[in-house]
């Protein structure tokens, strides 16, 4: 059975054109005018883009199934236009060996989108001893991170980089120097001072960015910076790239949409790590996304059950939902051409995750059919009770946004049609 996506504007790294797209047997069969197929998906007024790739999703399985499962998280991804997600390893047990990788991949195989997993850099994400990266790489893990923690020890990070380079995989760093960040629950600045909440200074992130740029230059190994949130971090990454150091970076949706004054509500839904920063840092993230210093938009989708978030601010866990709102927020808040937003969400993260040729386009005959169709003009209001995620901790409840995913096709299967999930 073939499916035709009719009447849309195709946007990928090769440009924009008005064309229908026919999908058959898991692949794109044809791209051109006036095509037909067994099933017709209307795309009039819509953009037909490569399916999005999220470098940074907490799917919580195994260990915290009350917050999210690989299945529910994948449905959230599909509703957000993502055809692929990279699961973070801070599960329980952590994804730090072949056995857990296999479990996650087995669960992911039944999910509506492609689930890739990252692996931990160190055993138990404890920062003491290298995790068996080779056995995980052999199972297809391309990206290693201790996300939730940064690797504190410079010497250990150096060895991890050298080892990873030999395996052809990439290290991703959650940049946070614990001794500066310890005990902090929001950005350290005017608002934390006023609210009496212990703060995390921007320097806790920036020191590790600085260190890892130096280590990357030293070892020649690439490093990917996760969820950069400060002006200083982004400036360093920009300069390092210009100097030829092989670093890449992602920014989380909330770091270009929200600022630290939101914490004045004391609602832990605004607690996240790295924390929301002042407007100047938010603007720097936007500038980085616009000028290429930042490669990708990541969601840092971090579900928490209502119980966990209905806590005093300093006792609640950090993290917020992101998969189902990322595209709309990027279109609403970033003053960028649609093609650039699509690039930040698809082919650029796909390249970092080692998924080139599978996800991220280009949309051409013979390519795997991983596609997202969205209406860039539709406005809607974020409703925490209308999410596919098992959790409700979106900081955007009640916010009006523009741009909505209409259809998502993963491996040739239309899993989201007219915003309806199709199990």
């Amino acid at each position, binding site marked *: 059975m073939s499916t035709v996506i009719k009447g849309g504007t195709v946007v990928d790294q090769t440009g924009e054109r008005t064309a229908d797209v026919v999908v058959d047997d898991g692949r794109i069969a044809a791209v051109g005018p006036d095509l037909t197929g067994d099933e017709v998906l209307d795309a009039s007024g819509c953009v037909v883009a490569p399916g999005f790739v999220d470098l940074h999703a907490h799917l919580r399985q195994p260990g915290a199934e009350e917050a999210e499962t690989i299945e529910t998280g994948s449905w959230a991804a599909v509703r957000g236009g993502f055809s692929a997600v990279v699961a973070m390893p801070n599960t329980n047990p952590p994804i730090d060996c072949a056995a857990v990788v296999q479990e996650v991949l087995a669960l992911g195989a039944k999910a509506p989108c492609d689930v890739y997993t990252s692996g931990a850099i160190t055993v138990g994400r404890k920062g003491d001893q290298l995790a068996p990266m080779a056995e995980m790489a052999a199972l297809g893990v391309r990206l290693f991170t201790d996300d939730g923690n940064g690797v504190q020890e410079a010497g250990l990070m150096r060895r991890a980089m050298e080892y990873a380079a030999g395996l052809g995989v990439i290290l991703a760093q959650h940049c946070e120097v614990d001794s500066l960040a310890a005990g902090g629950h929001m950005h350290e600045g005017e608002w934390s001072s006023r609210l*009496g909440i*212990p703060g995390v200074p921007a320097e806790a992130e920036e020191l590790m960015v600085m260190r890892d740029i130096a280590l990357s230059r030293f070892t020649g190994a690439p490093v990917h910076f996760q969820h950069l949130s400060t002006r200083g971090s982004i400036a360093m990454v920009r300069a390092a790239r210009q100097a030829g150091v092989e670093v890449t970076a992602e920014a989380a949706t909330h770091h270009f949409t929200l600022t630290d004054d939101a914490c004045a509500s004391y609602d832990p839904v605004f607690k996240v790590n790295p924390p929301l920063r002042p407007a100047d840092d938010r603007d720097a993230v936007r500038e980085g996304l616009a000028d290429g210093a930042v490669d990708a938009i990541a969601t840092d989708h971090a579900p928490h059950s209502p119980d966990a978030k*209905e806590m005093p601010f300093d*006792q609640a866990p950090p993290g917020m939902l992101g998969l189902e709102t990322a595209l709309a927020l990027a279109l609403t808040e970033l003053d960028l051409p649609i093609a650039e937003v699509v690039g930040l969400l698809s082919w650029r993260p796909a390249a970092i995750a080692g998924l080139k040729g599978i996800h991220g386009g280009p949309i051409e005959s013979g390519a795997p059919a991983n596609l997202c169709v969205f209406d860039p003009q539709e406005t809607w209001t974020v409703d925490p009770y209308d999410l596919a995620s098992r959790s409700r901790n979106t900081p955007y409840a009640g916010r009006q946004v523009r741009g909505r995913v209409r259809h998502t096709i993963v491996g040739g299967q239309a899993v989201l049609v007219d915003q309806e999930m199709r199990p």
Partner: protein
Amino acid sequence: MKHLLSINDLGAEGIEEACRLADHFTEVSQRPIPKVPALRGKTVAMLFYEDSTRTRLSFEVAARRLSADVMGFSVSASSVNKGESVRDTVATVSAMGPDALVVRHRSAGVPQQTAAWTHASVINAGDGWHEHPTQALLDCYTIRDRLGSMAGRRIVILGDIKHSRVARSCVMAFTSLGAKVTLVAPPTLLPPAVDSWPVDVSFSLDAALSDCDVVYGLRVQQERQSEALLPSLREYTAQWGLTVDRAARLPAGALIMHPGPVNRGVEIAPEVLDQPNATLNEQVRHGVAVRMAVLYLLLAADPDRQPEGEAS
């Protein structure tokens, strides 16, 4: 006003009004029978998640002098130790129909969160490093009582300001009433972004002392040493302690205040506490009248309700 979560909920006018009302309750407290029926039938629940004998007693006495019933909630004997969340506890206590919840918690913002979870009025009795509005109110009342007014007064707040909810509320209260506040502390005990506060900052107590109307000392805790915020308490006392010598250099009539409890010999010398210009006991006494005023303002003088029938 439904809740008192921050001293800013009152503002300058509200602080003045509460002080005027506290004058009346000071008179009530001096009656042979120091009790009025103003809040008869109202119930005030105490939710103290953190030990605080003086604040808790002060609120209880205030509520009882207004004839309100007091519902105690003792953390050690409660379900908190069985892992019950704050929200569930608030729901449970609220189900018993109190008119006000007086909340003390070690985490900033819990009173504000509580206000969203209950129909009762919420009074912040101290939350983390954030605020302690009734303490600031009783301090305003004490300064007004001793010095007449706050406008133009030069007030030195001394000590561990970074970790002090009292300092945050007092700075806002004092400055809103027109006082000029100088924070004096070692830099490690100042809050971040202190330049955004409406205060002057000085690292030298000796320089600040000669020119002030009030020295307001804050508690300095032993832990600050282990957190590497202070080399030693001994060094703190030498540089920033209100010693007998320093107290002697204060201008005549300048007040020595402290929210208590005092670390005698660390932030203030014991002899200084006994001087007639030290107001510690007055502050405690005024605490009752001021808390009566707050309870009365929240639970009795509700301006949103329309009068029914004739007044006389």
